[in-house]
């Protein structure tokens, strides 16, 4: 066990955890931020996507000991009230079916739009290819990202 001071969604949080504990489980078990989802545990599905700084990472594959003082943003911190353009666009396009992967999709899309505010169809497909949606809402995910890119302009 070691003690870590993490910067999560703009707040400092103290956590006692083994150094190899993935951020996914630190968030879900230690800090009770359960919006970040467990899907595969091996960085293949994207359900656990969070931001370190402005970069989307798979939190299942990021040990708590590697985070240091980087800003961690989770779905709960993307906006305080669901007002982020992507969250709004997701509702406008009624994207979710089961909804389980969508927080990860939105977090990945948010990093994509930060990097590339005006993505082409192909940029969106490629940028979102690491996030699996088992319900198959990909067509709507693409449309919602387009809409969010437009409203963010």
């Amino acid at each position, binding site marked *: *066990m070691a003690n870590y001071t993490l910067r999560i969604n703009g707040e400092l949080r103290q956590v006692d*955890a*083994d150094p*190899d*504990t*993935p951020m996914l*489980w630190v968030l*879900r*078990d*230690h800090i009770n*931020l*359960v*919006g*970040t*989802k*467990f*899907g*595969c*545990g*091996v960085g*293949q*599905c994207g*359900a656990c996507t969070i931001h370190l700084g402005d970069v989307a990472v798979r939190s299942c594959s990021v040990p708590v000991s590697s985070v240091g003082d980087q800003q961690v943003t*989770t779905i*709960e911190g993307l*906006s305080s*009230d*669901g007002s982020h353009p*992507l*969250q709004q666009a*997701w*509702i406008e396009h*009624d994207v*979710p*079916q*089961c*909804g*389980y*992967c*969508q927080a990860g999709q*939105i977090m990945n899309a948010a990093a994509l739009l930060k990097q590339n505010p005006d993505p082409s*169809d192909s940029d*969106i*497909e*490629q940028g*979102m*290819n*690491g*996030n*699996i*949606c*088992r*319900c*198959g*809402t*990909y*067509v*709507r*995910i*693409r449309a919602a990202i387009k809409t969010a890119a437009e409203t963010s302009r």
Partner: protein
Amino acid sequence: MLAGGGFMLGFNWQAGATAVGLNEVPEDFYAINAFLKIAKDGTVTIMSPNPEIGQNVKTSMPMIVAEELDVSWDQVKVKQAGLDTEKYTRQLAGGSQSIRLGWKSLRMAGATARRMLIQAAANRWGTPVSELSTENGRIMHARTGRSVSYGDVAEDASALQIPEEVLLKDPADFKIIGTSRKNVDGSHIVQGKPLFGLDYKKEGMLTAMIVHPPAFGMKLKSIDDAAVRAMPGISDVVIINAKPEGFSGTWSDTNAFPELVAVVGETTWQVLKAKRALEIEWETTSPLENSEDHEKGMQEHIDAGEGAKDRVDGDTAAAFSSAAKIVESTYTAPLVPHNTMEPMNFFADVTAEKAELVGPIQTPENLRTTVSNLLGLPQDKVSVALTRMGGGFGRRLYGNFGVEAALISKAVQAPVKVVYTREDDMTQGTYRPAYKVKYRAALDEDNTLIAFEVKGTGIHGSPVFSNRYPAGTVDNYLAENLRMDSNISTGAWRAPRSNFIAGAEQAFLDEVAEAAGKDPIEFRLELFRRAMSNPVGDENDYDPARYAGVLELVRDKSNWGEEMPGVYRGVSAYYCHNSYVAQVVDLVVENNLPRVKKVWCAVDCGIVVNPDAALNQVEGGIVDGIGHAMYGALSFKDGAPEQNNFHSYRLIRNMEAPKEIETFFVDNGIDPTGLGEPSLPPISGALANAFAKATGKRLYTQPFTGIPDFFDIIPASG
């Protein structure tokens, strides 16, 4: 009466009213019923009884109640009901039947409440009920200009007798049904609020993980847990058995690994590390199977097996001997896991007196029965609360994970949440069966279909529906079914049997149409016309007119027959879950890979309750169907699955999904039928048929990308 005032109304969710118009209210109205309640401020709370797995019934079922209640949708709050067999029946997510079987009684529920509210206003004003009307949660008396809100008369209404009969709306007057309403959980989903089983927490709760045998055909021999017990955060290691001697469960207790090791501790990561550190010896108790064995066994069935002749029309042997042309093909698909994005999990808190269960399950009633039997607790001491589910696809019909949570909680005398890793989930079993089916068709000199044979087998059962199309369209027809045994468990997987047989059948019919020199849509329509004018047999379980209807609709909408350079088209049509779907796939080649440019889809599922959400379901089924046909395969070596996570098991991803899907619903006013499953089955046929157009090669084996020369036969990008 509810505390704080309000109107609690019970109703029979599945009561069998028969027609629009006057409907008898069942006598057991209060006794067996679900409820809606109306607060003083007019807010209406509607309970959604059925499990929500992404099929969106938590929005669409309450919409039906709200319609007949005649309130505006923004007055409505929806709550998920837990298991309550006193109030509801068929609290099950499966077979695409929630809306179809709930339709009449959901309407009755709203209409009865509306009638009682009107009566309360009539009593207050001393006016006849017939002079009152309702709109958006208000009752109006036109003659005097008076009006009152539902909230104001709710308390009075709750004291009234249940009416003997109620009037249901004319569908032409629907204001909510047929309009698109957003997912009632949408805002919570996009903000990452706790909704799912894995998100559930309770004070003092421990985390448990299971270890099941590494191969089908193995069981636990011995375990050395000394080191693990000493690991930080670990409180216990227990062995549980979900099928003790003499226990016979229900169909949903399908489970290849009833005896498990469970590690219990504080945090998920601590338990996961401990689970990996366990030293367990397994022993082999039945043959360890390989995928090659399955393939060989199924091929032997097809070549030489004597199956049950489940339907025989005319004499196919005689017809084949006089045929001008014979077409013959065999189609195969592997075992596939469900892979819900949310791995299996469940919460249980078991004490000597009661068991409290919370989690994602499609069959809560079966879970309660099994837990009650295993724990020796009366049913009314076992509660099951439903969380939103991160996908179902049939996997959560089989509630072993819930049973495991209960057994572990009992063993460690603490509340526990069982959490499967992805590897546990993918290698646990209850897969979509592996299937093989052989078709033969005979054409006469005029290229008319004169005989059709289908022979199917699969692990634990054949995929063939003996009375479905093309049965009924041809004088000589034979359906023969075999079943292969295995120690690998199989079960329902989105659109069971149809998920394979539709694509096989529709790919085969394309070959037959080609052999007949006919347009594939026109060829299919000819058969439907035959079934409409002069059907063969009287057990055909489809309506040929509705079948033909979707095919004609997709033909017209897609401008079928139009030649587009570089676009290869395939068609299919299928009936399942009481609904009809026809699809056209436009395939292109990009970067030397096939890519679905567009899917055109026509659906006849009767009245569409929530159109945009219905489109979403259809789109999802299409993507799911393409994904599994292209990539899905779980292979076995020595009884063990060779894939156990998404690095080795391929699910369809964003870049592989169709660029565009356009769906058209038939507007026929028929009571709603299934929609969660029907768009999936035919798409693999349309895709294979488009691929054949592009390459001249037919795809007989799923996954298509596993066919050795699949990538060699993709034409160069145009």
